[in-house]
């Protein structure tokens, strides 16, 4: 049976991600990866998921969102609270199970936030939408800054703007989370990437995904053939928020303490940079850009003071490279060779240009 090109592309993506994971694991177990780089493995997974999910909104749905870190924040705090609560209230010792529940909870709460924010935001178009998402990202941060959670004898206490709640603090406002058990693992991050790819790639190549892309390409034409544009923009936005929430939960559980300040506007922009550098709408590009640019500061340690300067130069070079027709042609020919179609097959479709 001849497989559809999109299916082949998706399978290739899973294959490459799995191969990369195996190689990284081998490097870690053989001791040939530096401690510092090992510490970057979970953040890499987190940022890959962040970038791919943001690409769903920016690239596939065509709406510029500047508040993606807000959903990450919601997921991170939800995950930390749920994990601590499961341990305190139910004595759930199994860290894998706790991590799983924490990530699911982070995704769900972020999805709810996505719905609430999406309702007003998706009525707006273009620049307005970008500005309002930016504002919402900051609002989420300010609200989280005023939240206090504590656990006392298995009961969860919440308060707004006041630390007067009994028991052991889990989240204390601007000071962030307290003494959270760091249960995030690299394999969990790897599974989360596969999960994200599964959702996003399958969505793109389905009826709903086509409706999302149609709404992006030509709103009036999409409506004229009966596509409910708002519904499909909402779908992309909420799924993206959910995935960001899951990534956030994993991220949060990688630190014993973190504050809402971690998920500032800068983080939203950083993720957007990954998406833009990897190519808007290009899922593969998002993965590669997020992975490279997350480890890059670590790799550039040798440059000490000049680190950020070199980082900036690398960014510019990557941008030039990904936009160079010569290099793109080369990549396209390579991709065609890999598919076994010969170098002369025209570049077309595929996951790189959904």
């Amino acid at each position, binding site marked *: 049976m001849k497989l559809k090109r999109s299916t082949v592309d998706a399978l290739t993506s899973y294959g490459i991600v799995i191969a990369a994971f195996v190689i990284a694991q081998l490097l870690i177990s053989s001791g040939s990866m530096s401690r510092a780089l090992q510490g970057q493995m979970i953040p890499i997974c987190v940022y890959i998921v962040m970038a791919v999910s943001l690409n769903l909104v920016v690239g596939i749905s065509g709406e510029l969102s500047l508040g993606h870190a807000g959903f990450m924040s919601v997921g991170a705090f939800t995950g930390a609270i749920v994990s601590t609560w499961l341990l305190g209230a139910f004595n759930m010792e199994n860290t894998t199970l706790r991590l799983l529940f924490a990530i699911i909870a982070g995704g769900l709460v972020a999805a709810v936030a996505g719905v609430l924010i999406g309702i007003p935001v998706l009525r707006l178009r273009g620049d307005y939408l970008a500005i309002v998402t930016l504002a919402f990202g900051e609002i989420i941060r300010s609200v989280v800054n005023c939240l206090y959670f504590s656990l006392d004898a298995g009961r969860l206490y919440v308060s707004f703007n006041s630390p007067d709640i009994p028991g052991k603090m889990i989240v204390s406002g601007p000071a962030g989370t307290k003494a959270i058990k760091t249960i995030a693992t690299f394999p969990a991050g790897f599974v989360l990437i596969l999960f994200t790819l599964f*959702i996003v790639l399958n*969505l793109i190549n389905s009826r709903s995904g*086509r409706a999302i*892309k149609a709404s992006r*390409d030509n709103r009036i034409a999409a409506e004229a*053939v009966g596509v409910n544009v708002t519904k499909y923009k909402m779908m992309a936005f909420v799924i993206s928020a959910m995935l960001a929430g899951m990534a956030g939960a994993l991220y949060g559980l990688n630190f014993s303490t973190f504050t809402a300040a971690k998920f500032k506007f800068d983080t939203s922009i950083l993720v957007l940079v990954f998406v833009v550098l990897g190519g808007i709408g290009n899922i593969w590009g998002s993965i590669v850009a997020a992975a490279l640019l997350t480890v890059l500061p670590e790799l550039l340690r040798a440059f000490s003071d000049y680190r950020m300067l070199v980082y900036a130069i690398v960014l510019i070079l990557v941008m030039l490279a990904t936009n160079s027709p010569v290099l793109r042609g080369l990549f396209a020919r390579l991709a065609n060779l890999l598919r076994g179609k010969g170098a002369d097959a025209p570049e077309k479709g595929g996951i790189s*240009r959904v």
Partner: protein
Amino acid sequence: MSERPKRRSTTKMVPMPSQAIIPERDVHDIPVLEARHLGIEFGGLKAVDDFNLTIGKTEIAGLIGPNGAGKTTVFNLLTKVYEPTTGAVLINGRDLHGLSIVQASKLGIARTFQNIRLFDKMTVEENVRIGLHNQIKYDMLSGILRLPRYWKQEKRQHEKAMELLDIFGMQDLADEVAGSLPYGVQRRLEIVRALATDPKLLLLDEPAAGMNPHETEELMENIAKIRDRFQIAILLIEHDMSLVMGVCEGICVLNFGRVIAKGTADEIQANPVVIEAYLGKKKEAAT
């Protein structure tokens, strides 16, 4: 002097659109379209004023008029891109008042655009599949989880899309990116996409624009074929008079937002008001 009645009805009486003409074979069916006293203003300018039109169930009708007459605006009113300032649109007897573009589409009205609006970055087949959005459905979760329903409906979509593309012999182009196609092919693809929504009334806005005489000839035959095969009504805007006169049964002439004539091809061609509207336009063009 007689006693005046105590109460008087305050109902405002309006004349119904008269002079409606439809093909004889359609008189026993509800007209697919009835536009009554339709009007819209843009900042004081009456782009369309008191527009009345009735189209029979299987009629091929033409809407003609000089540039800027308001033809495209009529299409935008019929498809709910604009909410009319006055009047009503009825599709199969259902009033479109307050409905959205999407709801109008679901009631069976489909269109093409004067300035082509395809989903440029998607393939020809995908464009048609989006036209099938409300015809062959499955929900988001079936799609993500690739449930049996996904495979079944995707297959049906593919088969239906191919069947529709075959109308214009475009099956070979299924995997081409829509935006890369020649102009004439893009116009045909727009028609196929519109047909995919299973409309009762198809609106074509200058379908022959950018086509050579040979292509136009072919298009004319295909328009008639489409009507025969799908048993739908077609309303087309066109500047190519050979096409309009060749294929349209009823023709409506618009000038400065108002209907100036209605009739068959012969009647329209002999109508002095129409001739003046077109000659007047020529004079303007010369200056």
